[in-house]
């Protein structure tokens, strides 16, 4: 099976092939090209499974398999390489991308039935999958840029899939431009980080060498901070972090399978992936880590609030995606390498499930709005239970995938000895409440209450339901490989660990500092079921030789039970669902929520007074004020800044062109020509045409010359 790793390049190559074939011959095929996409993705998926198995069972930390060939010289002895880097992280992303993509391909065959540009859609899906895999498999940052920008293009083309309508065009342009703005950071960051690697080998962009050099402390702090913050800027825009998340909710203008594949499961996680890929570099600077953590925390909380006031089902999910991406980012910022990408992994499944489920609902009622749904559980039983599974996974219900991964994130916050750690833990917990609340709200509004649909809803066909079922199973199951019930020696953490990470330390963490930082949490941790009593053993990774790693080590070791976190998460979940049930249990969104709460509020105020307090000081501020404020700040202020920057640029452009270019600069050029014309108008009078006058002037000239020369003698 070893050979599979060497042939990992086939995984991205297959979708590229199918994209080309669909584009060329798709319209001639009976399935209009969709079968080509499904076939290639199925093969790619099987390969990915093999690769995942190989990397998973390899003794940790697995030595990455790297192959590259010289693509082109770049001058000065440098070369551009095209290569593959296969390790656990790659394999994990392969598995996620190919599986979700396969599901989306199958799903779209029915969902997109009868659409114009059906074949184009499938060609783009395949092309997107190729681009994403190209980014994932990249062994050098330059290749990553290529994949990164190509996914952006596919995203642009698919968001604007219904380009006849202006809002869709605007959404596509906005998505491309906001992410392109981030690409400035990626390009500059990659360039900056390539400078210290000039001496290393032919390709200054090699990721492994960069990571190793950073871990060895061979790269200056200034370079790391500048380079990584620039790259982080790209991740902020691509992964929808505040304040550059503004494009992601608008991107829901695309067809729903696209939202599931690109704007939930894969492309938007590219930023997380890239930071994870360069984690040894990022881990060299506390400043970078803190910035990442703070941005993640802000995003995870505020985006979650916005989701509360959305009526458009896909927008709820979009803000939820932003919020969950914030979790991943925050985890990476507080040393939770494994936690961050574990959440990426599980989130990919359940969020894709939710989007596909939403697509199924939208397909049935021909509307995105929850106010047009209601009581859907009767008409669409399969969609119903799969959607519920996705929701509880997202909300972090115990023993679902989302629970394990989100807890890992929170635990990572606990471990971290700096202020951002506590921030991630507590804000993360609060946002977990918000998450559970808005998902419960969605479920109640959509599946309970009375039907408000204008079309009699019907269950979707097999091709749409089957992917839902598969993803629902994975929404539960995928969490277990990173959970304490799994093997300590072969789990998600060891899978995605790399030798560099296993050996690297945080240079800024002093041994005793981390110890004291953990003292507080130590007792809580000690209560864990696995009995990881001391802080040192908590941090120890069970490496190949079983050697314990230093206090500043990056990997946290095998997952363990954290009863306190579990209980808190459960409490938060239950509280949120209960609250949501109180408010939305009747499933009547057409009534104003305040009025909806009216009788209940009166009763509770009269009986306890607690609910009034809760409503007035928690529900109203959170739902009506904070969330609306967040929505407003997102839509008016932050979006306004984007729009304002656009307008300002256009104004500046007009002024530059009209005044500076046309008047000043071009005026100078024209002025030179006009002055020549003006002078010639005056000087031409000398040319009288009178030969005798010429002769007279000639003689006069001679006389003058004679006099002058005579005088000079």
């Amino acid at each position: 099976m070893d050979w599979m790793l060497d042939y990992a390049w086939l995984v991205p190559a297959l979708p590229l092939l199918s994209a080309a074939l669909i584009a060329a011959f798709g319209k001639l095929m009976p399935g209009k090209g969709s079968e080509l996409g499904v076939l290639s993705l199925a093969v790619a998926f099987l390969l990915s499974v093999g690769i995942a198995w190989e990397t998973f069972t390899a003794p940790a930390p697995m030595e990455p398999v790297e192959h590259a060939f010289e693509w082109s010289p770049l001058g000065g002895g440098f070369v551009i390489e095209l290569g593959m880097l296969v390790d656990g992280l790659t394999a994990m992303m392969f598995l996620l991308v190919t599986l979700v993509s396969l599901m989306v391909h199958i799903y779209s065959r029915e969902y997109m039935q009868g659409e114009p540009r059906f074949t184009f859609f499938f060609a783009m899906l395949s092309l997107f999958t190729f681009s994403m895999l190209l980014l994932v498999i990249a062994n050098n940052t330059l290749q990553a840029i290529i994949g990164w920008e190509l996914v952006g293009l596919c995203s642009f083309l698919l968001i604007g899939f219904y380009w006849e309508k202006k809002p869709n065009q605007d959404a596509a342009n906005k998505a491309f431009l906001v992410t392109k703005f981030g690409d400035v950071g990626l390009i500059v960051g990659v360039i900056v980080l390539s400078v210290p690697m000039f001496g290393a080998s032919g390709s200054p962009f090699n990721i492994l060498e960069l990571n190793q050099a950073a871990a060895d402390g061979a790269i200056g702090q200034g370079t790391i901070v500048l380079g990584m913050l620039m790259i982080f800027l790209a991740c902020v825009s691509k992964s929808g972090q505040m304040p550059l998340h503004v494009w992601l909710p608008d991107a829901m203008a695309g067809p729903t399978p696209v939202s599931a594949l690109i704007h939930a499961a894969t492309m938007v996680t590219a930023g997380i992936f890239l930071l994870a890929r360069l984690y040894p570099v990022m881990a060299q600077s506390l400043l970078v880590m803190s910035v990442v953590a703070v941005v993640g925390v802000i995003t995870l909380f505020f985006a979650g609030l916005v989701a509360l006031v959305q009526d458009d089902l896909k927008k709820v999910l979009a803000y939820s995606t932003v919020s969950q991406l914030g979790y991943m980012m925050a985890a990476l910022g507080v040393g939770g390498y494994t936690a961050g990408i574990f959440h990426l992994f599980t989130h990919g499944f359940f969020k894709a499930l939710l989007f596909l489920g939403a697509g199924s609902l939208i397909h049935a009622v021909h509307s995105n709005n929850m106010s047009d749904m209601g009581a859907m559980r009767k008409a669409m039983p399969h969609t119903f239970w799969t959607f519920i599974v996705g929701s509880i996974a997202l909300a972090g219900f115990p023993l679902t995938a989302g629970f394990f991964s989100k807890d890992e994130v929170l635990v990572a916050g606990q471990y971290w000895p700096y202020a951002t750690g506590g921030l991630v833990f507590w804000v993360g917990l609060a946002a977990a409440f918000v998450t559970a609340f808005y998902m419960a709200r969605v479920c109640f509004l959509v599946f309970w209450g009375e039907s408000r649909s204008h079309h009699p809803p019907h269950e979707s066909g097999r091709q749409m339901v089957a992917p839902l079922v598969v993803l629902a199973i994975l929404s539960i199951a995928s969490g277990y490989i990173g959970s304490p019930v799994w093997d300590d020696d072969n789990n998600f953490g060891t899978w995605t660990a790399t030798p560099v990470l296993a050996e690297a330390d945080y240079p800024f963490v002093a041994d005793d500092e981390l110890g004291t930082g953990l003292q507080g949490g130590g007792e809580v941790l000690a209560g864990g079921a696995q009995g990881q009593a001391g802080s040192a053993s908590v941090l120890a990774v069970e490496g190949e030789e079983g050697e314990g790693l230093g206090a500043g080590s990056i990997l946290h070791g095998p997952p363990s039970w954290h009863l306190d976190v579990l209980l808190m998460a459960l409490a938060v979940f239950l509280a949120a669902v209960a609250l949501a049930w109180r408010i939305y249990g009747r499933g009547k969104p057409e009534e104003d929520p305040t009025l909806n709460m009216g009788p209940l509020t009166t009763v509770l105020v009269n009986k306890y007074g607690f609910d009034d307090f809760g409503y007035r000081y928690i529900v109203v501020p959170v739902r009506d004020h904070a969330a609306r404020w967040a929505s407003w700040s997102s839509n008016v202020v932050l979006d306004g800044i984007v729009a304002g920057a656009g307008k300002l640029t256009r104004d500046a452009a007009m002024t530059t062109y009209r005044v500076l270019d046309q008047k000043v600069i071009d005026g100078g050029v024209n002025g030179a020509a006009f002055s020549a014309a003006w002078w010639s108008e005056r000087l031409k009078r000398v040319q009288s045409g009178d030969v005798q006058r010429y002769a007279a002037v000639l003689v006069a000239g001679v006389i003058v010359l004679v006099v002058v020369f005579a005088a000079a003698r």
Partner: protein
Amino acid sequence: MSLVGPLLLATFLFCVGIYGVIARRNAVLVLMSVELMLNAVNINLVAFQNLLFPAEAAVSGHLFALFIIAVAAAEVGVGLAIVLNLFRTRATVNVDDVDLMRW
């Protein structure tokens, strides 16, 4: 023999020529005045050759004078032809009326 005589004669002729070229309005007379100037130069050339370099075998001055006479003949030929054409098209030989080369 002194140079003064021929030079004075040449100067006189040349001045008459210049006056004619500048002041006369008749194109034929202008041409004639040009001839006067050329001949003034010829006198100078011959005088210089004879009085300054009498022993010189190469009689450059004389040769130049002959050259000028030949060229002057050609010039007068062309000039008169132009004047003739001018008279035919414009019915005048007054140089003031001919200012086509003006700006």
